């Protein structure tokens, strides 16, 4: 008995030495959440796009910071007269991961499916749909201008990716389950609740040769991505530090400081990836009272509010609805709208006719947003407003939000979008139920022939909305990733790490 124990111990020790070495070009990434579905055309959650967008699935083109269109699956994109039609010529050398060739049929099916599932885009094109004109070309005609349509196609959260027609036909319960795309990686396996494994697509039409050429050097190119779903922040951090993971997402601000001191770990990600919005219920008695709304805004210290959720770092106080990644839609001078004035708040509350009723704050416990609610309650107490926090899990909150009799304000995070009209809380029938006038003004922004024109229109709308306060935007957040510092060539695109050119330094 006594002799067996040390042997067992040694055995177990040996087990731990069995770590995959970097020579195999493997990157293990720990994510904080798992997408509810891998169908990123329908579901806009960040975790799905992180894994599949640009890796497995691709869009026809991308638009970079300077507004230039970068072709991906298309060769050229042209507007017709009046910009009421769009004509796209596709690449002819693209193959799907299942070996079939991408042709105009696949593109038409994919894009029309995208439009079917994405109401805002479909409304923008007045219900039009793509059609093929043969010879690897597709077109769409609309009653109105399509000037801003490329932004929908290139950057919307519901991604306009190209899927093979078989995978669309094999939909199950309305969702695509055969994940077949055109990208530099293919989905090898998906184990729900555990991980998704992507491996290099060796017949990628893109710059694979250049990438593979790096193997002539000493470095090892990355050929396998394993995305793990690890909801516990501590486990992710310890995993990175102990070498179980090579990259982790959603680094907490207090871990950032520790990682900065660690030379084996590099930090990525300084772009704003979204904003927090406190959306008033314009159909409830308190939420529809504009004086009350103003009072609420004046009673909050936006810096403290953001800090309660994000900690020391990882956020910027800014009331612009759009993030810094869309500089054309940002105005300066927003700080007067984020001022805190308790005296004025108190008098506005009296003026508004508030009679002591409970101000109901709806939130979920996702990503510490419930702490914002706790802060708000205490801040509002200082100006004499009694509030009640309704905290639910995420799915429960989404459901509760639909019921206008249940809440007066809810707290949520909204990811970056290319155009202001894509912000859900600015849509008329979205919970919050923005005023018809305000909604129309926001829609009017889309009625522009260029981004510059839209930007001018938006600046007026933004100022008006800052006055009427349908929502309060206290600040924006950044998503930080931490990597093994020997992993080179990782690019951040749209706030998400891209591994296609990454390799391990020797």
């Amino acid at each position: 008995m006594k002799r067996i124990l040390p042997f067992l111990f040694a055995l177990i020790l040996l087990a731990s030495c069995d770590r995959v070495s970097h020579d195999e070009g493997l990157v293990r990434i720990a994510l904080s959440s798992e997408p509810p579905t891998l169908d990123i055309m329908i579901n806009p959650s960040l975790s799905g796009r992180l894994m599949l967008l640009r890796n497995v699935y691709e869009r026809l083109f991308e638009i970079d910071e300077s507004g230039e269109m970068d072709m991906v699956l298309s060769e050229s994109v042209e507007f017709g007269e009046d910009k009421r039609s769009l004509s796209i010529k596709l690449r002819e050398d693209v193959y799907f991961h299942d070996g079939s060739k991408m042709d105009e049929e696949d593109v038409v099916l994919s894009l029309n499916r995208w439009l079917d599932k994405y109401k805002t885009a479909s409304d923008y094109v007045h219900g039009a749909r793509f059609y093929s004109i043969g010879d690897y070309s597709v077109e769409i005609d609309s009653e109105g201008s399509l000037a801003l349509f490329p932004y929908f196609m290139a950057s919307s959260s519901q991604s306009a990716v190209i899927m093979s027609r078989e995978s669309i036909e094999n939909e199950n319960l309305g969702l695509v389950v055969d994940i077949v795309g055109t990208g530099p990686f293919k989905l090898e396996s998906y184990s729900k609740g555990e991980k998704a494994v992507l491996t290099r697509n060796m017949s990628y039409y893109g710059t694979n040769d250049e990438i593979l050429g790096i193997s002539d050097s000493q470095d090892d190119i990355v050929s396998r991505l394993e995305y793990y779903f690890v909801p516990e922040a501590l486990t992710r951090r310890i995993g990175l530090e102990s070498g179980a993971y090579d990259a982790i997402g959603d680094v907490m601000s207090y871990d950032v400081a520790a990682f900065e001191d660690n030379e084996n770990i590099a930090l990525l990600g300084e772009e704003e990836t979204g904003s927090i919005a406190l959306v008033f219920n314009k159909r409830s008695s308190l939420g529809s009272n504009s004086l009350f709304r103003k009072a609420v805004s004046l009673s909050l210290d936006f810096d403290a509010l953001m800090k309660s959720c994000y900690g020391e770092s990882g956020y910027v106080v800014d009331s612009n609805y759009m993030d810094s990644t869309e500089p054309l839609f940002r105005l300066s001078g927003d700080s007067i709208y984020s001022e805190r004035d308790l005296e004025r708040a108190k008098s506005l509350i009296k003026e508004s006719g508030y009679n002591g009723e409970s101000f109901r704050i709806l939130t979920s416990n996702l990503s510490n947003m419930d702490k914002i609610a706790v802060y708000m309650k205490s801040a509002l107490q200082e100006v004499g407003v009694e509030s009640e926090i309704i905290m639910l899990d995420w799915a429960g909150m989404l459901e509760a939000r639909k019921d206008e009799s249940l809440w007066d304000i809810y707290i949520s995070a909204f990811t970056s979008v290319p155009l202001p009209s894509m912000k859900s809380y600015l849509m008329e029938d979205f919970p919050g139920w923005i005023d018809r006038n305000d909604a129309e003004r926001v829609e009017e922004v889309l009625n522009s022939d260029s981004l510059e024109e839209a930007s001018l229109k938006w600046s007026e709308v933004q100022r008006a909305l800052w006055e009427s306060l349908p929502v309060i935007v206290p600040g924006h957040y950044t998503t930080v990733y931490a990597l093994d510092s020997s992993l080179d060539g990782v690019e951040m695109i749209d706030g998400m790490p891209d591994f296609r050119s990454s390799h391990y330094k020797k």
Partner: protein
Amino acid sequence: MRLRGGIIILGLILAFSFAFSFLEVGIDLSRSLSGASLTSPLGFDDLGRNYLVLLARGTLTSLFFSFISVSISFFLGTLLSLFLSLLKRGYELALSILDSVRMLPVTVVAIFLSSFFLLGELRIVISLVVVFTPMFTRISFLKLSEIRNREYILFLSKSRVSRSRVFFCHVVPHLWLSIRGAYGVYLSTSILLESTLSYLGLGLREERPSLGSIMANAKDYMLYRPSLLIYPTLIMLLISLSLYLISSSLGEFDSSLKRPLKGKLVNIAKFSSNRKARGES
């Protein structure tokens, strides 16, 4: 001796929690995660709240909700067991139904209940009651069967003494004596269960901190400020210790009774009464 020690510890915890809970918690982000100060000897949490006051309130809340839930379960459980014992044949069926209720994981019950927004804090009480009532019923039923077959009870019921008198003056006190140990154990179990639910985000609401939610929050800062986790852990340890001392000295709670010796024990009781009926030993 044990009993006294347990009561003293629990009493001290209750007293201190009660006393400190009246102070201001005070949310102030500027002193987030700061260390100990004169007014706040245990430091501040991430929202800048006075940790001592927070813990005091959390302790009271956890104890209060656990006490309510376990008491309700106790009451319902014993009632149910009394009802079951009146059934001559159907108790197996009834116990099977109870088993089904017991097999519902508490997380699923809690999520289901969260759909009813008006419930608020009742949600956690109901979830815990759903978990503990079947357990109490089972123990109570077993003990009840055993007690009713004790010789002097049988003697009493055959004599002129009225049934209700036998029941209330003799059976019930013995029942209480037998299962009060279980009460203590389940009380500490329920505090743990509540903390597990809080970890998964299904517990009490944020504004009413409980030990569980405080710990769930503290674990995020474990590498940065471990004291945030250590203090509530110590409190839980003390509570469990005191409850254990009290319950173990009050009655021998044998958890083999937690489950399926039911058939066996009932049959042993029957067996011994059969033997008596046949005039043996």
